[in-house]
C-alpha cells in the first residue's frame, strides 16, 4: 500500500533543504576558530539554544516511534514520553550550569579539569563516540524505514540510495555550517515539528469535540479497552516487567549523559543562559510529548492498528498515516518532510559532537598533547565529520529494518552507565579520582555493551538481529538496571582504592568556578 504523492513529498522536503542550506551558508561566514566551529562562538540565546535542544532531542524515535507505540500498545507507549521528559530535570538541576561553567567544548573538558588529562579524555571520547554511533545508526535506520512509506521506495537498493543522500546532505551542512549552521537547522526543524504536531493535535481533538475522554473512548471502541490501561507491551511476564524498570532507569538517567545534549550547553554565553536553554527545552519537549499522546490515540482511532501494521513502515508509520487521514496528500507531504528534516538535524548534531570529541579530545589533547597549529584542530574535525558521515551511511544501510527503539535505548543506557556517574562525581565529589573516573567510564561502557551482546536483542529470539543462533544469557533487552548501578559503584570503588590523591588546589578551583562562573569561556565577538 502506498499513500500520498511521492513527488509532492520530495518537493516539500527539497524546499526545506534549500531554505536551510541558504541559512547555513549565511550564518557560516564567521566559522574560523575552534570556538566558532564547535560552539558557535557561544553566541546563541537561551531561547534559541533551548529550541535547538528540542530539535536535537525530538528525534525520529520520539515522533514516529512514540506515536506508533501509543497507537499500537496504548498506555505503554506513553511511558516512554514520561521518561524522556522527566530526565531533563537531572540536566537542569545537576548538570547544565556547572558543566557550562567548567568546560569548553566537550564532556571531557569538565572531567579533565582536575583529573589526569590524557587517560580521562581518551575514556570520555571513547564513550562519546560509542553513544553517538548507536544513536546515529538508529536515526539512519529510521530514515530507511521512513522512505519506504513516504516515497514509495520499497526495494533495498532504493532505500540505501536515500540513506546515502540524507547522509551526504548532512555532511555538507556540518562541514559548511559547523555548530552554528547545525544549530539553525535544529531550530527550524524544531519549530516545524512542534507546529506540525500541534496542528494535527488540534485537528484530532476538534474531531472529538475537544474532549480527551471522548477520543480515548473512540480509540478503545476500535482497539479494545486494553489500549487505555498499562501492561499491553511490558506487562506480559515478570521478565518483561523487569525490563521495563531497566528501560525507565536508562531513560531518566541517560539524557544528562548524552554527549550531543551536553555539548549544546557550550553554545550559550553564560550558565544563566544554559539554565534558560534547559527551561525552554523542557517546555517545548513536554508540550510535544503531550501532543504525541493525542496523536497516538488519534491514530489508533482514525487509522486503526491493522492498517498501521500493514503499512510499509510498520509501527513507525502511525503519524504519517494519521496525517494522510486528516489532511490528505498535502498534510502527509508536510509531515513527511518534517520527519526527514528531523532525521537530518539529529544526525547533524550527533556528527558534529562525535567530530568535536575526536578532534578536540583525542587528536589535539591525547595525540598531539596540546601542540596543535592554529586551525589544525578544526581541520581534523572537518575530516572526522566526513569519516563519521560515511560510517553512518554504511552502518545505516547495514542496519536497515532493525528495531530503532532498541538502538536508541541502547544509546541512552550507555550514556547513563558510562557518562553520567563520572560527570556527577567530578562535579559534586571532592575526593573523586582519576582511577574512579576510568573504572566508571570503561566499566559502565563495557558492561552495557557486553550485556547487550548477550541479550535477546542480538540472539536467541524471533525478533533478534541474529535469530537463528542463540548465545544469549542476559534475559533483559535493556542493560540499564545492571550497568548503571555498576558505573556508579565502580566510580566509588576506584576512588576509595586510589593511593594517589588529586590536587586539592585544582579541586578547589573547579568547585569555585563551577558555582560562580568565574573564568568560564566567554562568547566570542565578531
Amino acid at each position: 500500500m502506498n499513500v500520498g504523492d511521492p513527488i509532492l513529498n520530495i518537493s516539500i522536503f527539497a524546499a526545506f533543504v534549500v531554505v536551510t542550506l541558504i541559512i547555513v551558508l549565511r550564518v557560516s561566514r564567521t566559522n574560523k576558530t575552534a570556538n566558532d566551529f564547535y560552539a558557535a562562538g557561544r553566541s546563541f540565546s537561551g531561547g534559541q539554544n533551548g529550541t535547538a535542544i528540542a530539535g536535537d532531542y525530538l528525534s525520529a524515535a520520539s515522533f514516529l516511534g512514540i506515536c506508533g507505540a501509543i497507537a499500537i500498545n496504548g498506555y505503554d507507549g506513553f511511558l516512554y514520553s514520561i521518561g524522556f521528559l522527566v530526565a531533563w530535570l537531572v540536566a537542569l538541576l545537576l548538570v547544565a550550569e556547572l558543566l557550562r561553567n567548567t568546560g569548553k567544548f566537550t564532556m571531557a573538558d569538565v572531567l579533565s579539569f582536575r583529573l589526569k588529562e590524557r587517560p580521562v579524555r581518551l575514556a570520555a571520547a571513547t564513550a562519546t563516540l560509542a553513544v553517538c554511533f548507536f544513536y546515529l545508526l538508529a536515526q539512519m535506520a529510521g530514515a530507511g524505514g521512513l522512505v519506504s512509506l513516504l516515497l514509495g521506495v520499497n526495494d533495498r537498493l532504493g532505500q540505501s540510495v536515500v540513506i546515502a543522500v540524507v547522509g551526504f546532505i548532512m555532511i555538507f551542512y556540518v562541514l559548511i555550517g559547523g555548530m552554528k549552521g547545525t544549530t539553525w537547522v535544529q531550530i527550524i526543524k524544531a519549530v516545524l515539528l512542534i507546529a506540525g504536531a500541534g496542528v494535527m493535535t488540534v485537528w484530532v481533538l476538534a474531531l472529538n469535540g475537544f474532549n480527551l475522554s471522548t477520543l480515548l473512548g473512540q480509540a478503545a471502541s476500535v482497539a479494545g479497552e486494553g489500549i487505555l490501561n498499562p501492561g499491553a507491551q511490558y506487562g506480559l511476564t515478570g521478565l518483561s516487567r523487569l525490563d521495563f524498570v531497566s528501560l525507565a532507569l536508562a531513560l531518566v538517567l541517560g539524557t544528562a549523559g548524552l554527549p550531543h545534549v551536553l555539548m549544546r550547553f557550550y553554545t550559550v554565553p553564560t550558565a544563566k543562559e544554559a539554565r534558560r536553554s534547559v527551561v525552554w527545552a523542557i517546555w517545548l519537549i513536554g508540550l510535544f510529548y503531550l501532543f504525541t499522546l493525542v496523536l497516538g490515540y488519534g491514530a489508533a482511532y482514525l487509522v486503526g492498528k491493522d492498517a498501521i501494521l500493514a503499512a510499509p513502515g510498520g509501527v513507525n508509520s502511525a503519524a504519517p498515516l494519521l496525517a494522510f487521514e486528516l489532511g490528505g496528500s498535502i498534510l502527509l507531504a508536510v509531515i513527511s518532510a518534517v520527519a526527514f528534516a528531523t532525521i537530518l538535524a539529529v544526525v547533524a548534531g550527533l556528527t558534529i559532537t562525535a567530530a568535536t570529541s575526536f578532534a578536540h579530545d583525542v587528536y589535539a589533547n591525547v595525540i598531539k598533547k596540546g601542540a596543535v597549529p592554529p586551525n589544525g584542530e578544526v581541520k581534523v574535525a572537518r575530516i572526522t565529520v566526513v569519516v563519521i558521515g560515511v560510517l553512518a551511511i554504511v552502518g545505516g544501510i547495514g542496519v536497515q529494518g532493525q528495531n530503532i527503539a532498541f538502538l536508541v535505548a541502547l544509546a541512552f543506557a550507555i550514556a547513563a552507565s558510562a557518562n553520567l556517574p563520572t560527570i556527577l562525581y567530578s562535579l559534586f565529589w571532592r575526593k573523586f579520582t582519576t582511577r574512579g573516573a576510568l573504572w566508571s567510564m570503561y566499566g559502565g561502557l563495557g558492561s552495557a555493551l557486553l550485556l547487550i551482546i548477550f541479550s535477546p536483542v542480538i540472539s536467541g529470539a524471533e525478533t533478534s538481529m541474529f535469530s537463528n543462533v542463540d548465545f544469549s544469557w542476559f534475559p533483559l533487552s535493556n542493560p540499564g538496571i545492571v550497568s548503571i548501578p555498576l558505573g556508579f559503584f565502580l566510580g566509588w570503588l576506584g576512588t576509595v582504592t586510589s593511593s594517589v590523591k588529586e590536587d586539592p588546589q585544582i579541586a578547589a578551583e573547579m568547585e569555585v568556578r563551577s558555582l560562580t562562573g568565574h573564568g568560564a569561556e566567554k562568547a566570542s565577538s565578531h
Partner: protein
Amino acid sequence: MAHDDTGTNVPSTAIDYVAIEESPAFIEHKRRHRSFVFPLAIAFLLWYFLYVFLADYAHDFMSIKVFGNINVGLLLGLSQFVTTFAITTWYVSFANRKLDPAAEKFRNELEEAERA
C-alpha cells in the same frame, strides 16, 4: 585551568582557591545550592519511580476509571508532566533570586583579585 608539558594539571592563577572555598561566604553559597538541588533531585526521582512501579506492577489500580474514560494511570502520567514543569519553574525562580546574586558577587571579587 592549565596543563603543563606532561599533562599534569597546574593551577592557572595566583588566586588561592582553597582559601575561597573554605571561606564562610562560599560555604554558605555551596550549601544553599546543594540543599536545594539534592533533596529536589531525590524527590523527583522517587516520584518518577513510584509512577514507574505503579504502571509496571499495579495494572488494576492504574486502570480504575476516574471520570469518563480517564483512568488513574493517565492522571498520574499527566501529573508527571505537571510536576516536571512545576519543579522547573521553582528551581529557576530560586536560582534567579538566591544563587545568581551570590555567584555574581564572587565572580566580581575573583576578577578583581586576578587583575591585582
